[in-house]
């Protein structure tokens, strides 16, 4: 199974090229990737612990080991590149890399739905890594590293698809579409939560400036009167009270 960039990634190639052009930015992105890969590896080892299917357990463990190895490759290369302390705009949201399985609750998934999710996730990651490999012409070492990792990602795409076909020969298409829908739903939830967060922050900030100033004056005055050092502890605070 070959990795192919999504249409969006294909259209964003110039942007990816710009993001990866700077050495410092590249180093920091690789170090972030290392963390994401390590997180993904932990989720896969959890999947291996939870499945009742011995074949899947072995494959998940191999997959987890791959992710750990990738994390180490990213970390090593990132550190090699991190030569100076100069700060750069990292642009993580522009090129998020492999999202990993960080928002997946492995324990709540059946083997079939997990395989479908993994397949789509690996496919997306492999497509993006293919783009990164292609835009890294100026850095042959990093490019070679992505090429090596890409081979593993293609294996991951392949085994998850084959195992899904083994476990759900008649429902594999449905499982994949359900997983796609779940990914979309999660993306929507992320956006909705972020929007709600911004709205909540604005409302609370408004209250902060409108309601709190008077109380703040009183609190500051009270703080000035507080003696420094030890205070007497309350004797036998009642356990029924939350105060």
């Amino acid at each position, binding site marked *: 199974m070959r990795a192919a960039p999504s249409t969006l990634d294909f259209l964003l190639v110039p942007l990816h090229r710009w993001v990866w052009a700077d050495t410092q930015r590249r180093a920091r992105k690789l170090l972030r990737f290392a963390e994401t890969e390590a997180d993904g590896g932990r989720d896969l080892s959890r999947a291996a612990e939870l499945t009742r299917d011995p074949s899947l357990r072995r494959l998940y463990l191999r997959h987890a080991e791959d992710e750990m190895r990738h994390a180490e490759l990213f970390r090593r290369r990132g550190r090699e590149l991190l030569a100076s302390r100069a700060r750069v705009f990292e642009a993580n949201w522009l090129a998020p890399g492999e999202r990993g399985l960080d928002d997946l609750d492995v324990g709540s998934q059946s083997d079939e739905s997990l395989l479908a999710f993994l397949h789509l996730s690996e496919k997306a990651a492999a497509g993006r890594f293919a783009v990164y490999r292609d835009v890294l012409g100026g850095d042959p070492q990093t490019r070679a590293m992505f090429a090596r990792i890409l081979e593993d990602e293609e294996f991951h795409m392949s085994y998850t698809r084959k195992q899904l076909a083994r476990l759900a020969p008649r429902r594999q298409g449905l499982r994949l579409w359900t997983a796609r829908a779940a990914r979309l739903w999660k993306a929507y939830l992320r956006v909705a939560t972020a929007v709600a967060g911004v709205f909540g922050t604005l409302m609370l*900030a408004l209250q*902060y400036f409108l309601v709190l100033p008077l109380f703040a004056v009183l609190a500051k005055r009270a703080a000035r009167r507080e003696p420094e050092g030890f205070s007497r502890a309350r004797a036998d605070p009642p356990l029924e009270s939350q*105060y």
Partner: protein
Amino acid sequence: MRILGISAHYHDSAAALLVDGVPVCAVQEERLSRRKNDAAFPLAAIEWCLDAARLEPEQLDAVVFYEKPMLKFERILTMALRSFPRSWRSFPRAMKNTLGAKLWVKGIISSQLGVRASRILFTEHHQSHAATAFLTAPTERAAILTADGVGEWATLSLGRGSVDEAGNVSLELLRELHFPHSLGMLYSTFTAYLGFPVNEGEYKVMGLASYGPPSFEASIRKMVRRTSDGALALDLSYFEFHEGARRSFSDKLVAELGPPRDPLDPIDLDTPEGARYAAIAASVQRVLEDILVDLARSLQRETGLDDLCLGGGVALNGCANARILCESGFRNVYVPSAPGDAGCALGAALAADRLHFRQPHRAVPDHPYWGPEVDAQELARIAVEDGLELAQLPREDELIDRVARELAQGRIVGWMQGRTELGPRALGNRSILAAPHGAEMREKLNRSIKYREDFRPFAPAVPAEHAERFFELPPGGVRLGRFMSGVFRVRPEWRERLAAVTHVDGTARVQTVEREMAPRFHALLEAYGAAAGIPVLLNTSFNLAGEPIVNRAVEGYSTFRRCGIDLLVAGNTVVGKQRAARTAPEEAVA
């Protein structure tokens, strides 16, 4: 009485169950959820405790939460008001964070467990720490010192506890220090400054401290001043944690000490920057130790007692604990296996039993093994399915001999026995064990198993009766080493032969193993001594970086498969990495 204790929502949530005054089980949520330092409401831990005791929630006499949420909210709101308008960024976040779930603990417990609200009780945070420290210690009269980042308002408390002949318990907190003045926050601020995660990386600061001279001590003493009553006051112009801003230290601190370490930058101790980080770690460690020793010394003079019970996250600092034992005048220092927030679940339940319900004191079994039992059959089944070499050794001596021989040959062993420990340290039931003799073993463990920084030391375990032969233990040192709570010097003549567990400054965080507490682990240490000449093993927690300590056999197995552990032992089942005759058909299905 049946009392459930709960700690949750900040870090290391846990549940503990007390039946008729004695703990029957306790476990951290992270061991079950497999999320390191899981702070979520510990539903899995509660369910496991109730299942283990065969109880339904309605059979509980009380559920005790380890702190008072409204009092904590008062502190958060007050601090936002005091730092107005600088707190404008952090205020919305703090409110969303608190109003989301943390404030409604009573409702959450009531709805999750179906327990009547009148049965839900709340101890104070430091009262829980004090109860964990005093009521689990084998003493009837002791001074109590608790210190952590912050509870409700208190960050440090001093007190004393006693049990009379009738079993009536008195636990009196005499005085406390209030937020933002906090030894725990001081140390955490430097943990963040040095680029380590707060509430997790404090061990790293302690490990790093041994590599540098405390040359920034004067600078740090400017940031923390002793008050006339013996307490301390932070100079808040060096800190921002009390304003909840983007970071916990201010530009003034950066101007004083230099730029903070970026978490992504590796620490290279051969560079000037690496040496500076080590010197800063050494300096903050020195200041923390000096203050704690001084506080403990005053408390000893004031109470005239021989025993001190230490609680709170700061009590995980083994170097400070050892100095307190040596210099404060106390003969014994007791630190529970879980002095941090996880242990508060147990402390809250004990406090409710002894202080609220006035039940007579019953001695708490003096061990840390309160969690789920390992299932050796589960490991055997998986090993057979995966075609790995398997041996089941029902005779204890056969098992011990085999493992001791493997360890003596330089193999690394994943060792799972009995019930999992409560607290952050593996104390012989969920441990990775190895020969402690060569520095190359430390490098191998760091490189192929723990995947962690080279400057972090590994701990030795030794039978209590042999401990003084290898380590310079002061009177009371064996006791402090019971739960690996003290850092002591390795005797110079043994340092070379204990190179893998001897830190750069010649010290080790030794675990002294009593036969009665862990008979099988003790027997293994003795057998290893017979095979290798020294009854000391390297003992590190059975987990990989970023993962909680393993709990079930299958989790031990998955860890074993993903790293350089050579042999996995669960109960009487031994699994090696070599394939059995039948090979696994994984390639065919991939």
